């Protein structure tokens, strides 16, 4: 009878349901379907979909690609540590190294242009968190993730690490510039 006693009928699966239950199940199921179709819909019509383009890579290789990029398109240096600021042309492969405990180098992108942003960690797992946009992507060692980005507003952005990566986790923060030309 009550939920802590056996059901009144052994064949409980034949018990009829009340209209209120039936109506709710139909409504709830319809809503679940809507939520399901939103995802494929956004893949076709939406402009914000996380890419799944990924390559296995060794840290040395990724670091070399980043250094070559810096050598080609460095525009200036910032801070006492002389972190290079790189302004790659639109459409280019842009490399951002995540490592204990910084992001390297600093990127300067152009508003409205599209870039292939390559993310990879050299050591532990990190979290790429672009602020204040609040775009967040997991960064793993050994997996080179190519995210195609199109910045839509000029400004100075922050890149925060939002995956715990050891004692200096909260110091792992950098900048990203988006400029209008």
């Amino acid at each position: 009878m009550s939920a802590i006693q056996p059901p009144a009928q052994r064949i409980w699966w034949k018990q009829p349901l009340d209209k209120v239950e039936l109506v709710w199940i139909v409504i709830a199921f319809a809503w679940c379907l809507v939520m399901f179709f939103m995802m494929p819909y956004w893949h076709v019509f939406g402009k914000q979909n996380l890419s799944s383009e990924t390559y296995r890579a060794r840290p040395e290789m990724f670091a070399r690609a980043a250094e070559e990029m810096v050598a080609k398109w460095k525009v200036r240096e910032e801070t006492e540590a002389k972190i290079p600021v790189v302004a790659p042309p639109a459409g280019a492969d842009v490399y951002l190294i995540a490592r204990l405990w910084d992001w390297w180098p600093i990127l300067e992108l152009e508003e409205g242009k599209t870039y292939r942003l390559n993310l990879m960690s050299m050591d532990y797992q990190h979290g790429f968190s672009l602020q204040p946009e609040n775009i967040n992507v997991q960064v793993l060692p050994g997996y080179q993730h190519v995210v195609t980005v199109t910045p839509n507003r000029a400004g100075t952005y922050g890149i925060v690490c939002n995956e715990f990566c050891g004692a200096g986790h909260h110091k792992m923060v950098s900048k990203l510039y988006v400029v209008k030309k």
Partner: protein
Amino acid sequence: MAGTELFRTDPRTGLQYHKSAELLIKANAVAAVVALLVGGIIALLITLTRWQAVHLLNADNFYLLLTAHGLDMLVIWVIFFEIAILYFCSSTLLRSRLATPRLAWLAFALMVIGTVTFNAAIFTGNATVMMTSYVPLPGHPAFYLGLILFAVGALIGCFIFLGTLVVARAEKTYEGSIPLVTFGALTACIIAIFTIASGAIILIPTFLWSAGYVKSIDPLMYRTIWWAFGHSSQQINVSAHVAVWYAIAAIVFAAKPMSERVSRTAFVLYILFLQLASAHHLLADPGLSTEWKVFNTSYAMYLAVLASMIHGLTVPGSIEVAQRAKGLTKGLFEWIRKAPWGNPTFSGMFISLLVFGFLGGISGVMMGTEQLNMIIHNTTYVPGHFHATVVGGTTLAFMALTYFLIPSLFNREVIMPGLAKWQPYLFGIGMGVFSLALMGAGTLGVPRRHWDITFAGASLPYEYPGTAYLMLAIMGVSGVVAIVGGAAYILITVGSLLWGKRLAAGAYGRETTVLRMPVDTALTGHGTGGFVAPGTFVFAMVFLTAFILYYFVNWKYLSTVWGLS
């Protein structure tokens, strides 16, 4: 019936306790409360650290204690209590002897030893790796070993539950089918077995890796299998606390499930689909295809979400039906207005339902949407969400059940009834606001597991808006309120066991009675003609409206961020 085992019949509830089972239920429940105490003290320290204006601990201690808090709460408190529930739902509810009590003590010992082992690794500073211990972040081998021992113990507990079901059936201690609450516990147990197996598959190689026997563990594989454990174990909690909701509705209102068929089918949906929903922890990861992500989060998750939406209707619905039968039929809401809001067993259960559904459920579905996940992944939105589910939902439901167990199982009167009356409100509302504040901070980009969002000493700091600090302050204040509520719970529970007035326990004897099938109902539910719970239906529609609005607000926000493809 007379056997060789000792039983007693609780004079207040008529429940029949097997002596060996009773001791085990008590031991597991007490171990759970000890873990809650430890985790709760730590909760205070880390809350006062994340409240940026107070910033209590230093960085190393913060990360160390955060690791301990996550595990001692989410794993130790919750699973010890669940083992107690499993034994209660099998042995006590079915009036059966517990299968192999000795093995159950072995399981208990393994769980205790495991807990002590990994805590030793954490508190000596050798395993500050967070509960997820994502490789290749290194932890001491004792950390993984402790978790493995605990898991083996819990696994044995699950098999003892199944064994008890078999014994009860063979010895015909009950008529008909098992009660709905036991069915829910069975769901939890089946999911637990899958979960613990996944945990073992990933933690054993990780243990070997930390001890130097395995060269490396692939981080993506680790995350995939770890979350098959980490997420599915949350499904154990959901099944367990939904079973507790039904149990409390039955205990407080003698409520009859609206339709056994609907409620049981909804439990089966948990088994079928919640497992795969672990994919929603990997939505922001590289290396997994979009199709895989969409498939696993949608088909798998939404049918499980459907199940929770069904329970969300049928639990209060069954209460409404029971209340209306008692004559509380005025308008849509007399049944709920005149509910026993001063009884912490009821109020705890009902607040648990509300916090779980409105805050935990809606935020969980939002986060679990493939594209939307990107705008909250690893922000404080995530702990905001799961404090609503596993703290406001599961933990509060277990607390509510405790107020029933103290007299019935421990034969003590609950002390400080005035405080007990307020406890669920302090804890539930505190947690509700705490969760909302963390979610709010998360939508402003505040990272989770982060010691200092002012980035003092960093060469290129980022400046969060003032509202982010405000959110963290609200989190701090409401967190402290919730902790006061949690402390009240521990004080009342421990105090009642030590000093509560002893109640008549019923003598132990070898006579037992069979759990009869109720005979007074024919093969009908409440009938298909009526609309038996109109008030609950209105609540459900309010819930759905909030859900839809919130869901699309997030899509709207997503559409304004950088283009990504």
